[in-house]
């Protein structure tokens, strides 16, 4: 194995403004159902935010609004100073800057791992194939699976697939990374390898929004923890305060349930 | 509603056909460099491609004769194979200039369909094929016989009419296709097989031992087959009509493919008028005066066309019968050239 002793690091792309994400008075409905209500959240460049809350509270919906997988109906969302509107070119531009990792990986099963990684750089960033391959191999080394480059996703374990998914997002050189329960679909022994990768990413200074129930991860890397319930942000605090002195009744109940 | 639209479409078609009459079919053909001829591609002896893919047949030769009259070249014909269903639309819409597809001349087709029939080039009619061993001489002896016939055809209706009119008892055995009907007849399921005589001779070849079967002389229905053109262009109507008549006159006067050059020097005034050495009858049709010479030289006279495609040299071996000249006991009779 030609694996270097310490994995290579890469500075995340620089944000143009100090505020990475600014969500102001945002509402969203699914039909009649008011799923997000008056969401206000400002994420500074380099900040790591962990979002938690009971099932159905709207965590996924909120971070999916940030790269327009869902459309919000009221309020404003600004990504690095650019406002999200219906303008398709603007949406494409924002998606290029915001990487996303899903619970179920969503790798492309008909492409090899390497092709999964180089697809967007080649077609969206118009990168020459050679350069895209180099970058892809760089990130595969970083998530510690360069030897899997020519396999298909179906031939990898869940943990390996999720690391490929992280590498895929990183290949676009994003300024912000969104994670939606990246470890919930994994067997327990694979959760660790994925969390390690995410911790590393945090150490590199990536701006991250992570929906997760991994409280250990929250303690270790989060600058702030956001607690959501019934479509609202109920409490925002540093991890120390959040776990030691939860303020809201719902937060206390939630913590008592999951820390049992 | 649907009918309304169809009728409307037909009305427009007929109106526009009438309008295009002033465009002169003959000029259009000359400009195009070829006659568009609607033909039957699947009727032995009348219209059928040969092994080389060349069109051949009795009706086909009529189109070649028209082309010969116009271009002095019988190959300047584009044949369009038409089904029984779409043949009239093809003529009405102008897709073909003339329909030479064993088409029966009836009043409704001659009038409301907007067609003009140019004469009867073949007197067809329903006939019977029976086994020789039955020793029958006439269809009138078919009382109580089982008869194979194709379902849903006028043939089936004519058969019933004929038997009722002659107070005979009829047992029909019907089939969806003529192939099945012939097979059943051959297998002995019926005593006789009936269809139009023009097809009957071809079917006879498809039974195991054709020499053991005969076609009875009676023809029990009138199926006068002829070429048809659209309403509205009288000149073109005359050309097609007189192509048929001069073929008959040529046979009557003994003008044939082999002797037409010699006949040009004939003193017989009728031959002189026919071959254009006297008079300007071709000009009146918009054709050269020697158009008959062109026709006969390239395709022969009526008798030659008949023999070549249907007669004794062919496996069909159809007798002239009703299609003999009037002077020989048949019905074929042409007005004189004068």
């Amino acid at each position: 194995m030609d694996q270097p002793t310490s994995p290579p690091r890469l500075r995340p792309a620089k944000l143009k403004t100090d505020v990475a994400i600014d969500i102001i008075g945002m509402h969203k409905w699914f039909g009649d159902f008011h799923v997000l209500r008056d969401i206000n959240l400002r994420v500074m460049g380099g900040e790591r935010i962990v979002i938690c809350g009971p099932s159905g509270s709207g965590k996924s919906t909120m971070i999916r609004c940030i790269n327009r997988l869902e459309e919000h109906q009221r309020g404003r969302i600004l990504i690095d100073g650019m406002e999200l509107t219906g303008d398709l070119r603007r949406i494409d531009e924002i998606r290029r800057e915001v990487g996303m990792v899903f619970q179920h990986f969503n790798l492309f099963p008909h492409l090899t791992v390497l092709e999964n990684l180089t697809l967007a750089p080649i077609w969206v960033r118009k990168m020459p194939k050679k350069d895209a391959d180099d970058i892809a191999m760089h990130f595969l080394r970083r998530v510690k699976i360069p030897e899997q480059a020519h396999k298909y996703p179906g031939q990898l374990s869940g943990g390996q697939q999720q690391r490929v998914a992280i590498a895929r997002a990183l290949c676009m050189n994003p300024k912000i990374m969104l994670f939606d329960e990246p470890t919930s679909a994994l067997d327990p022994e694979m959760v660790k390898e994925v969390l390690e990768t995410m911790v590393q990413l945090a150490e590199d200074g990536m701006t991250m929004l992570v929906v997760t129930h991994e409280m250990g991860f929250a303690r270790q890397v989060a600058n702030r923890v956001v607690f959501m319930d019934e479509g609202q942000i109920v409490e925002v605090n540093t991890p120390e305060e959040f776990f030691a002195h939860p303020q809201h009744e719902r937060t206390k109940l939630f913590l008592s349930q999951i820390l049992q | 509603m649907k009918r309304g639209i169809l009728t409307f479409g037909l009305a427009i078609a007929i109106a526009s056909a009438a309008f295009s009459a002033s465009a002169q079919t003959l000029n259009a053909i000359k400009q195009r460099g070829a006659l568009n001829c609607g033909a039957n591609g699947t009727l032995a002896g009348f219209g059928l491609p040969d092994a080389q893919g060349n069109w051949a047949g009795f009706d086909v030769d009529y189109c070649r004769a028209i082309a010969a009259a116009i271009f002095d070249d019988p190959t300047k014909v584009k044949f369009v194979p038409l089904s029984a269903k779409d043949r009239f639309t093809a003529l009405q819409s102008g897709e073909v200039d003339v329909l030479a597809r064993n088409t029966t001349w009836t009043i409704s087709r001659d009038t409301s369909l907007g067609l003009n029939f140019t004469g009867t080039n073949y007197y067809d009619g329903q006939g019977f094929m029976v086994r020789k061993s039955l020793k029958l001489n006439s269809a009138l002896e078919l009382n109580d016989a089982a008869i194979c016939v194709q379902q849903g055809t006028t043939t089936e209706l004519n058969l019933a009419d004929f038997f009722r009119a002659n107070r005979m008892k009829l047992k029909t055995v019907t089939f969806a296709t003529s192939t099945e009907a012939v097979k059943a007849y051959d297998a002995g399921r019926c005593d006789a097989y009936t269809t139009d005589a023009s097809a009957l001779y071809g079917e006879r070849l498809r039974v195991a031992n054709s020499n053991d079967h005969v076609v009875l002389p009676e023809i029990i229905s009138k199926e006068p087959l002829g070429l048809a053109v659209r309403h509205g262009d009288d000149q073109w109507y005359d050309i097609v009509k007189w192509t048929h008549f001069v073929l008959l006159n040529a046979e009557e006067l003994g003008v044939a493919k082999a002797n037409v050059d010699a006949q040009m020097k004939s003193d017989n005034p009728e031959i002189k008028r026919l071959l254009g050495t006297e008079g300007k009858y071709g000009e009146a049709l918009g054709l050269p005066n020697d158009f008959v010479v062109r026709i006969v030289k390239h395709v022969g006279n009526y008798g030659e066309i008949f023999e070549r495609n249907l007669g004794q040299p062919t496996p069909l071996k159809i007798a002239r019968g009703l299609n003999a000249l009037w002077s020989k006991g048949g019905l074929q009779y042409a007005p004189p050239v004068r």
Partner: protein
Amino acid sequence: MAAHTPSGTSYVRAQAVAPLPPPLVESGAIGWLRTALFSGPLNIVLTILSGALIVLIVPPLLNFLIFDATWSGADREACLARPDRPVVGACWAFIRERLGYFIYGFYPIAERWRVDAFFVLLTIGIIWLLAPTARRRTLGAIYFFVVMPVLACVLLLGWPAIGLPEVSTTQWGGMLVTVVVSGVGIVFSLPIGIVLALGRRSRMPLVKLFSVIFIEFVRGVPLVTVLFMASVMLPLFVPEQWSPDKLLRALVGVALFASAYMAEVVRAGLQAIPRGQYEGAMAVGLSYWRMMGLIILPQALRVTIPNIVNSYIALFKDTTLVFIVGIFDFLRTIEAARVDPKWATPVTSTTGYAFAAIVYFICCYLMSRYARDMEARLTTTHRR
């Protein structure tokens, strides 16, 4: 038993068990016979019945097609029963003499090499595009979809300027027409079908409405009607000089018809693609068309390959319907030739239809065989 450790209830295997060959009844010929053919009363009955059926059908078929057949001869006399030859089988001599007509139709004999050249070009294209080991597929696709059609047009229709006399489509026929009609249907139905399927799932109401109306209308009408409308109704309303060529009209009709069916096949494939694939593609910044072209369609088409090939096989056989509008396809040339007085005998029709059946069977079998191989290849390499 020796593997058991004596102490207590817990169990630890002490010795590994070596693999043994399977017992004889399970493998070998006898085992196969027992399990496959005679495993139960129902199975035994079915085995005997099918065996009887085979014995009943196959020998007479072989007798007719091969042993009693007439292989050469000049005309119908050769295929007639004689006292010294009471049983006559297939009249292959007839097929031999008419083969040129079945392949080329009315195409002038001197120009038939052009049709041969077209068949060669087509075969090259098919192999280049479909052979699993072929190189440079993209170039192959350009050849197949752009270069070859142009060459084929020039070759078949002619171009007097470069010395190829014009051959109008009324002179085309036989296998040539069958290949052209089904080829055009096959080549055009997939892209048009894809566009229609995407249209049907589109969020734009007008696009969606048009797609739905088109698909449902065409699917609600038999092909015969589509062909009939294309060939009979059109010239009624359009003057002669504008109305397109008869074959072209049928081609358009067949292509549109096949597209509507293909659209539904593709739609089923699209529905099988999970939402996560769309989201994954959008999240890496792919635009709609790139997402469809690079992620969704490749997967959707892959799962629908068997259905696509099914439609192709159906289409290939459906093209025989063009005879309705007076176009002489392969089957129609056989039907026409079988009444030729020169060859008409009791066995001529049967021979003609048997020949048609064999040719159609070979073509369709090759198609479905290729589809099965391809499916197997894809499932082994691209498991989900």
